[in-house]
C-alpha cells in the first residue's frame, strides 16, 4: 500500500535523528533536560509506530513509501511490513523504556547530553536498518548502527579498556560489512536491482552457486553483528559500555539484526540450501558455546553477555532451519527478558557503586526488591519456566528444529537449555540469596532523579518477560501474523516425533529441572549459602583454563588473522614496493651490516634500470603473446 499524505513511516524514521541533532546542537543549553527530550522523541516514535498498526494489519504487503530513484535499478524507500513492524515495536517501545531508565543511570555524567544524542542516533540507525526497502539502505543502517555502537561502547573514553573494546567491535563488524557489500555486488550483478521486491521475486532464477555466495556473504554480516561464531568475541568486551547501552544495543536490538537479515532474505536462503544449513549449525553451536562460557563467568554483565550470545544462537538456529517465525518470536520475547536482566543488573551495579562481580554480592533480594522480582521473572523466562515468555519461544524454536528434520540441532538446543538453567539460576542465588559479601555498604547518594525512573522500566520489562509470549496464543499467533511474509514456508508440514509436548516440552522441562536443580544444590541450600564466600573463591580457581580463557578464541583469531595480516603487509611491502623496504627494513639493517648496505646501495643505484627492465619485460610479454596467438 502506498502511504497517504501523512507519511507515518517517514515521521517515525526521522524523529530520532531530529532528536539526536537537536540534543547534539543544544547540549549545553539543555543540561538535565537532554534525557527527557530524548525520551519524548522516542516515545513519539513509539506512538507513530502504533499508529502504523491498522495499515500493517490490513495490508499483508505492508506500507511502502518510495522516496526517490537513485540510479537505474536502485530506488530508495521505506517499507513497514509485518516483519519490520515487529522490530519497530521493540526498537521504539523497549528503546523508550531504556531511554527513561538511562536518565537515572547516567545522571550526573560529564557528558550526559552527548550520551542521549548518541542513543537517539542509534535508534535512527536501527530504524534505517529495518525500514529499508532495498539492500543499499539496509547496509547504510547496518554501518550506522555499528558506528553508534562504536561510540557508545567507548563512551567513557577515559577508560582504555572501553576504547579498546569499541575498536574491537568496530573491526569485527567491518568484516561483516564487507561480507554484506560483496553480497550486494553479487545481487546487483545477478538481478540488476537492489530492491527487496525485485530481488526476492526473481530469487528462484538465480544460479545456485551465486545464491550460495550471496547467502554466505549476508551470513558473514549476520555473524559479525549478532556475535555468532566465529566473530563473537567483541560482544562480551562491549560490556565496557554503560549498562543502558548493553541493554538496548547489545541485547534487545542491534545484535538481533543478524536474525532480521536472515529472516528478511529468506527467499535467498530458500534457494541456497547449503548456506541455510550453515546458518542453522552456526546458530546451534553458538547457543551451546555461549552457554558453556556463561558457566565460567563471575562478572554479572559478562554472564548476561554470554547468555545473549547463546540466546541469539537459538534465534539464528530457528531461522536457519527455516522456522522463521519461531526465530522472530524468540527475538521478541528475548528483547523483553534480556533488557530486563540488563537493566536490573544496572540497578544493582548503580547501587553498589560500580561492583560487577557476583561473588561480592549476595543477599540483595531485600535491599533491592524491584530489581530482584523483575530479575526473577526475567530469569524464569530465559531458563524456560512454563508459561513465562521464554518458555513459549524457546520451545517453538527447539521443536521446529526437530520438525524441520534436524535432530542434532535439537540436541544442542536442549543441552544449551540445561546449561542456561544452571548458570542463570546460579547467578540468581549467588546475587540475591544469603548474606552480603561485598566490602562496601552501597552508600549511593541519590540525586534529584526519583527512584521510579529506573525502577519503573525494570518492572515493566519484568512484567513483559512474563506475559509477552502469550501473544503467540491461542494458536501460533506469530506464525499466522507473519504468514504473508514467509508465505507459510516456515510451518512444518506435520507434527513430528510425537508432537511438541512429548518431543520438546518434556525434554526441555527435564533440562530445566536438572540445570536449576544442580545450581540449587551447589549454591541455593542453606548450608551452601552459609559457606558461600570461601567456596566461591575456591571454585573460581578450579575452573578449567580452557573455558576461562574463552576457548583461547582471541588468541586463535590473533594467530590466524592478525599475525598473518601483518606478515602479508610486510610481504607486499617487500615484493610490490621495493622502495618501502629501503625506507623501513633495509636502512635499519644497512646501518648495522656494512656489506649488506653496500650491496643495497648498488642495487638502488640501478633502480631506474630495474624499473625499465620491468617495463621491457611487460612489453616483451605482449609481443610474444601476439606472436603466439596470431
Amino acid at each position: 500500500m502506498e502511504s497517504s499524505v501523512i507519511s507515518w513511516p517517514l515521521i517515525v524514521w526521522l524523529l530520532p535523528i531530529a532528536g539526536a541533532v537537536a540534543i547534539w546542537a543544544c547540549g549545553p543549553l539543555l543540561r538535565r533536560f537532554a534525557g527527557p527530550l530524548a525520551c519524548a522523541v522516542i516515545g513519539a516514535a513509539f506512538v507513530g509506530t502504533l499508529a502504523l498498526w491498522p495499515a500493517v494489519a490490513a495490508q499483508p504487503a505492508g506500507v511502502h513509501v518510495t522516496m526517490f530513484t537513485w540510479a537505474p535499478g536502485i530506488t530508495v524507500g521505506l517499507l513497514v511490513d509485518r516483519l519490520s513492524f515487529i522490530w519497530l515495536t521493540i526498537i521504539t517501545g523497549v528503546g523508550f523504556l531504556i531511554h527513561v531508565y538511562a536518565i537515572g543511570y547516567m545522571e550526573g555524567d560529564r557528558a550526559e547530553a552527548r550520551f542521549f544524542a548518541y542513543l537517539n542516533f542509534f535508534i535512527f540507525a536501527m530504524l534505517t536498518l529495518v525500514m529499508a526497502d532495498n539492500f543499499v539502505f539496509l547496509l547504510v543502517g547496518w554501518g550506522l548502527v555499528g558506528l553508534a555502537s562504536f561510540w557508545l561502547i567507548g563512551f567513557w573514553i577515559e577508560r582504555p579498556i572501553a576504547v579498546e573494546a569499541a575498536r574491537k567491535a568496530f573491526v569485527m563488524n567491518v568484516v561483516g560489512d564487507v561480507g554484506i557489500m560483496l553480497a550486494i555486488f553479487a545481487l546487483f550483478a545477478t538481478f540488476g536491482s537492489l530492491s527487496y521486491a525485485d530481488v526476492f521475486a526473481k530469487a528462484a532464477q538465480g544460479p545456485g552457486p551465486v545464491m550460495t555466495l550471496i547467502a554466505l556473504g549476508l551470513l558473514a554480516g549476520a555473524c559479525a553483528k549478532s556475535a555468532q561464531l566465529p566473530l563473537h568475541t567483541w560482544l562480551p568486551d562491549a560490556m565496557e559500555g554503560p549498562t543502558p547501552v548493553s541493554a538496548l544495543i547489545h541485547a534487545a536490538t542491534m545484535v538481533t539484526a543478524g536474525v532480521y537479515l536472515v529472516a528478511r532474505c529468506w527467499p535467498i536462503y530458500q534457494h541456497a540450501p547449503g548456506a541455510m544449513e550453515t546458518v542453522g549449525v552456526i546458530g546451534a553451536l553458538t547457543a551451546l558455546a555461549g552457554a558453556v562460557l556463561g558457566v565460567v563467568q563471575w562478572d554479572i554483565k559478562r554472564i548476561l553477555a554470554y547468555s545473549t550470545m547463546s540466546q541469539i544462537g537459538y534465534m539464528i538456529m530457528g531461522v536457519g532451519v527455516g522456522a522463521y517465525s519461531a526465530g522472530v518470536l524468540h527475538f521478541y520475547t528475548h528483547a523483553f527478558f534480556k533488557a530486563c536482566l540488563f537493566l536490573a543488573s544496572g540497578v544493582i551495579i548503580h547501587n553498589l557503586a560500580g561492583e560487577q562481580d557476583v561473588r561480592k554480592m549476595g543477599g540483595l533480594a531485600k535491599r533491592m526488591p524491584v530489581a530482584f522480582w523483575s530479575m526473577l521473572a526475567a530469569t524464569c523466562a530465559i531458563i524456560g519456566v512454563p508459561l513465562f515468555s521464554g518458555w513459549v519461544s524457546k520451545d517453538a524454536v527447539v521443536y521446529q528444529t526437530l520438525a524441520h528434520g534436524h535432530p542434532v540441532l535439537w540436541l544442542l538446543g536442549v543441552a544449551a537449555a540445561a546449561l542456561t538453567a544452571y548458570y542463570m539460576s546460579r547467578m540468581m542465588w549467588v546475587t540475591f540469596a544469603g548474606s552480603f559479601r561485598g566490602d562496601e555498604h552501597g552508600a549511593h547518594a541519590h540525586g534529584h532523579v526519583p527512584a521510579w525512573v529506573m525502577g519503573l522500566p525494570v518492572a515493566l520489562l519484568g512484567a513483559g518477560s512474563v506475559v509477552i509470549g502469550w501473544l503467540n496464543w491461542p494458536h501460533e499467533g506469530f506464525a499466522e501474523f507473519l504468514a504473508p511474509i514467509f508465505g507459510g514456508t516456515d510451518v512444518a508440514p506435520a507434527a513430528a516425533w510425537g508432537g511438541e509436548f512429548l518431543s520438546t516440552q518434556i525434554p526441555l522441562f527435564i533440562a530445566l529441572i536438572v540445570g536449576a536443580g544442580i545450581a540449587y544444590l551447589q549454591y541455593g541450600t542453606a548450608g551452601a549459602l552459609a559457606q558461600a564466600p570461601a567456596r566461591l573463591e575456591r571454585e573460581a580457581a578450579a575452573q578449567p583454563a580452557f573455558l576461562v580463557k574463552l576457548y583461547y578464541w582471541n588468541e586463535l583469531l590473533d594467530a590466524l588473522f592478525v599475525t598473518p595480516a601483518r606478515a602479508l603487509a610486510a610481504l607486499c611491502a617487500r615484493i610490490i614496493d621495493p622502495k618501502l623496504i629501503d625506507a623501513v627494513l633495509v636502512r635499519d639493517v644497512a646501518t648495522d651490516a656494512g656489506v649488506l648496505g653496500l650491496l643495497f646501495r648498488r642495487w638502488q643505484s640501478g633502480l631506474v634500470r630495474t624499473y625499465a627492465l620491468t617495463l621491457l619485460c611487460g612489453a616483451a610479454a605482449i609481443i610474444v603473446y601476439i606472436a603466439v596467438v596470431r
Partner: protein
Amino acid sequence: MGGYLQYVQTLDYQALLPAMIVGGTAVIALLADLLLPRRIANGTAILLGVMATIMAGLYASLSYGVHYLAFGGGFVLDGLSVVFQEIVLLSTLVTLMLFNRRGVSEDRPAYVALVLWSSTGAMIMAGAGSLMTLFLGLEILSLSLYCLCAIARDREVAKEAGFKYLVLSSTASGFLLYGMALLFGATGTVTISALIHPATGIHGLYALGMGIFLIGLAFKLALVPFHIWAPDVYEGAPLPVTAFMSVATKAGALAALARVIYTAIPQPDAHWLLLPTFIFAAASMLVGNLGALAQTDIKRLLAYSAVAQAGYIVAALAGATELGIRSAVYYLAAYAFMNLGAFAVAALLSSDREEGTQLVAYEGLAARQPLLAAAMTFFMLSLAGMPITAGFLGKIFILSTTIHTGYWPLGALLVIGSAVSFYVYFKVIRAMYARVERFSHPEVRPPSQLPWIAVAICAVAVIVLTFVPVMPGDATFFVK
C-alpha cells in the same frame, strides 16, 4: 594533400579554442612573472590560471552536443572529448588552487605555466582523432610534467622523481611511437577511426603495432606492470602536481584508449588483441590495493590506490559496450573528484617542502580539524566504494558491465580488490580519529582560502555525482 590549409575552417579553431586558451594563458603567466614584482606575480599567475581554466571550461561546455571533425579528423569534437576536457580542466583548476600552500617560496608563475601546458596536452589527447595529434598531446603533457616533477630542485626525492619519470616515460613514448609507425605501415592511415580494415581483418603488422601502441598507453595509465614508476614519482613531485598526474594524465590517456578500443579495433575478433590490456587492468586492481596496504605515506598510498582505480576504469571498457563507456566515464568523473579531494586535504596538511605527508601526521586530525577530517573521511569512503557514495555506484555500474560482456573475472577481481581497499582507506580514517595526546605536526594555515575552496569543490562535485548518476547520452558519443 596540397592546398589542405585552405579547407581549415574557423570552426576548426573553435574546436581547439579551450586548449588554446589554456596554453596561451601559460605564456601570459610567464610574462607576468617578468613584468611584475615577485610578490604580486605569484598571486597573479594563479589567478590567471584559475580564470583561464574556468573560461576554457565554459567555452568547452558550449560545444557540448556538437559533433565535428576538425583539421580533417585530427581533432575530434564530440560528447566524449568535451566530457574528458572538462574533467582535465576541473583537475587543473583544483591543482592551481592547491599551489597556494603553507610556506610558499618558489616561483609560482613557472608552476602555473607548466601545469597549464600539461593541461593543454591532456586536452588535445582527449580530442585526438589521429595518431599524430595523440602523440603531440601526449608529448606536450609529458614534457611539462618532467619539469614539474623535478621542480623542487633542492629536494633529493624530487630530482630522483623527475629523472625516473623522464627516462621511463620516454621509453614508453618510444613504444607508442613505434606502435604508431607499425599501425601506419599496416593500414596506410593515421586517423584512429580509419584504422579498422573490415575487409582484411586483423593482420600481423596491425596486431603487433596495436599491441606495442597499447603498452605506451598502459604506461601513462600506470597499469601493472607499467605502474612501477608511479609511487616514486608521485612521492617526489609536489603534492598539487601529484594530484594533477593522478587525474588529468589518466583522463587524457583513458580518452585515447577508449577511442582506440571503440573505433579503431574491429570488435568481435578484437578479444584476443585486447586481452593483455585487460589482464593488466586485473593485475592493477590486485597489486594496487595490496601495495597500498603497506604504505605509511599518504602520497604513496594514493599512488597505489590510483593504480587500482585505473584498473577498475579500464575493466569497464572490456567488450566495448555502450554501458561500458558510460560506466567508465561516470567512474572516471567520480574518481577524479574523490581523488583530487583527498589530495587537496593532503595538500592542506603538508607544506611546500612536502612535510607532513606521513600517515602519522593525520593522527588526531578529527579533534583539531573536524571539517577537514570529515571531508577526508568522505573521500576515503567514496574511494573505497561505501554505499550511497559515488564510488559505490560507479563500482556497481562497472561490475554489471563486466557481467553483461562476459568479462566477469574482471568483476570478481574488482570485488576482491574493493574488499582489500577497505582496509587501505580505513587506515587513513582510523588515523584521523585516533586519540592522541599531543600533536607533533604543524598547524593548518594556508596563505589563502583557495585550498579550502578546492576541498569544497571536490566534495560538492562528488555529492552531485552521487545524486545524478545518469550520464547524459551524448556524453559518451563517439564520432566514427
